[in-house]
């Protein structure tokens, strides 16, 4: 793998994001347009300036419409342009910008719009009915699984192997739902939530309780990526994508190590090597790991090599991962606080890195001066990960 000789450096110069909430009146196209327009406006661009468009969206089954990239095309601004949809389940949120990155890094395109959209509320009665179709039809589906089961089993294994307490995991939900109070798009922000609220919330699939889970949501987000050749024409504060990585483990999920996400570590090492990062714990200032469940934030911090296995829980308990802590994690409020419209988490992960590093995060701005951040998403059948390192120069 050649991670050194990239032709063009790539910068984010604008980002946009809709409110995340269930059953928005708008269609997916309308939401995609709203986010795309915001990102273009911030970059001071119009659609005519854009060379190519990347669309990210999760299963077609959510919409009941095949070729969802095509279905969302007009709202994403892809009409009469080179256009492609990428989809790796939940990992799409950080993978769509990676696809945008390679379009620009290759030297082929100078300005690329990346739009991610999700409307989970169309599927009735619940998004779970669509999730049922991701399981193996021969071995898993006859057992009538609920998607929460696999997370519950993973969390159980993680707690067992690394001696992690549920009380420490639940603190992640408290932190993120409180952080989300500062986010204008948040669905589940709660300034008063306590640890007891999480511990006493409704049992779903134990050890997972209701407040350990991020909510299904509808929403869209977008970013504008430009080449180093034009970045400073658009802004004085471009934020650079200095490292990207992605990796997937076997589909045979009952054959995987469920406690440590090796595929996250591989994706992270790839991104760190490209960004020239040798000691991630020292060189990275804050992180936006994927947090659809509270334990996932911890497991992903460990996969990102920002904590030893089991250590992320201790960092959380000691308050280090708070927004004003020594290593802020999910200052956006994360999926747990802002909401989880699968691919549109682009706005919470890459969007937040951009806003924080450009000093535009408003009430969410972390206290310490941040120059380097890492974002990560996770998906497919719980075994794919995408990682992006971003820097202010």
């Amino acid at each position, binding site marked *: 793998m050649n991670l050194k000789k990239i032709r063009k450096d790539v910068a984010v110069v604008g980002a946009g994001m809709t409110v995340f909430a269930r*059953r928005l*009146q708008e269609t997916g196209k309308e939401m995609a347009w709203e986010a795309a327009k915001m990102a273009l406006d911030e970059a001071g661009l119009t659609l005519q300036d854009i060379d190519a468009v990347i669309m990210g969206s999760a299963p077609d089954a959510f919409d009941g419409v095949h070729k969802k990239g095509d279905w969302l095309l007009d709202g994403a601004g892809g009409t009469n342009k080179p256009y492609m949809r990428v989809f790796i389940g939940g990992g799409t949120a950080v993978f769509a910008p990676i696809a945008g990155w390679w379009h620009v890094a290759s030297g082929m395109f100078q300005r690329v719009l990346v739009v991610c959209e999700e409307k989970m509320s169309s599927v009735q009665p619940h998004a*779970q009915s669509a999730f049922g179709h991701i399981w193996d039809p*021969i*071995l898993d589906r006859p057992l009538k699984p609920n998607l*929460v089961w696999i997370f519950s089993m993973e969390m159980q294994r993680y707690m067992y192997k690394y001696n992690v307490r549920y009380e420490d995991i639940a603190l992640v939900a408290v932190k993120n739902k409180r952080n989300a109070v500062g986010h204008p798009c948040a669905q589940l922000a709660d300034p008063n939530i306590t640890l007891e609220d999480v511990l006493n919330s409704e049992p779903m699939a*134990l050890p997972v309780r209701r407040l350990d889970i991020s909510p299904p949501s509808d929403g869209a987000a977008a970013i504008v990526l430009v080449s180093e050749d034009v970045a400073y024409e658009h802004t004085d504060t471009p934020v650079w994508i200095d490292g990207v990585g992605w990796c997937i483990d076997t589909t045979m999920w009952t054959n995987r190590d469920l406690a440590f996400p090796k595929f996250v570590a591989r994706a992270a090492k790839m991104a760190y090597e490209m960004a020239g990062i040798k000691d991630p714990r020292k060189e990275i200032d804050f992180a936006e790991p994927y947090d659809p469940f509270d334990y996932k934030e911890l497991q992903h911090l460990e996969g990102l090599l920002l904590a030893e296995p089991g250590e992320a829980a201790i960092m959380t308990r000691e308050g280090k991962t708070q927004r004003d802590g020594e290593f802020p994690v999910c200052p956006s409020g994360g999926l747990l606080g802002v909401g989880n419209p699968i691919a549109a988490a682009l706005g919470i992960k890459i969007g937040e890195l951009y806003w924080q590093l450009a000093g535009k995060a408003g009430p969410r701005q972390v206290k310490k001066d941040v120059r380097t951040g890492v974002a990560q998403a996770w998906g497919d059948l719980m075994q794919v990960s995408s990682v992006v390192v971003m820097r202010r120069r």
Partner: protein
Amino acid sequence: MTKKDKFGPPFNPRGKPLEANEMEKIPHIRAKAPAKYAWAAGTAMSRFLEELKNGKIIGRLCAQCDRVLVPPRMFCERCFKPTTEWVYLPGTAVVETFSISYIDQNANRIKEPILVGTVAFDGAPPDCGIMHYFGEMKPEELKIGMPVEPVWKPQNERVGSILDIKYFRPRKK
């Protein structure tokens, strides 16, 4: 930030999820997708399902990786070589992880929890097993590392399905 239109303010102000019946207030179309499928089980899994009918667990040996693959595959995804022989396993297993579920497949709430998890079969590596139910135990008795054994349906009721195993129960000492 939600777009306002000529129909007035949106029905979903920030943070308020709309209930299902509120959907009725906005123009919408309902439909069902009545697609049906028949999935071939494939070369490896067909044999596995046949052996379930016989009350047996079978795996495939990857000689290169020295790994017995359960569920069986005709090739190894790690070394990418063909697997070479069928290996019968005793069927006894160990609980790798589990969940105590108060929700069914469609997220409906249920009173009696489903005990479910993954097991690793004896004779296969610790990361080689399947998902299944647990039974003949109380939820609080279920533990990682617990030795378990399959409880089979009566032979005349087995059809070559993962459900030919009813569940796994604690192994008698």
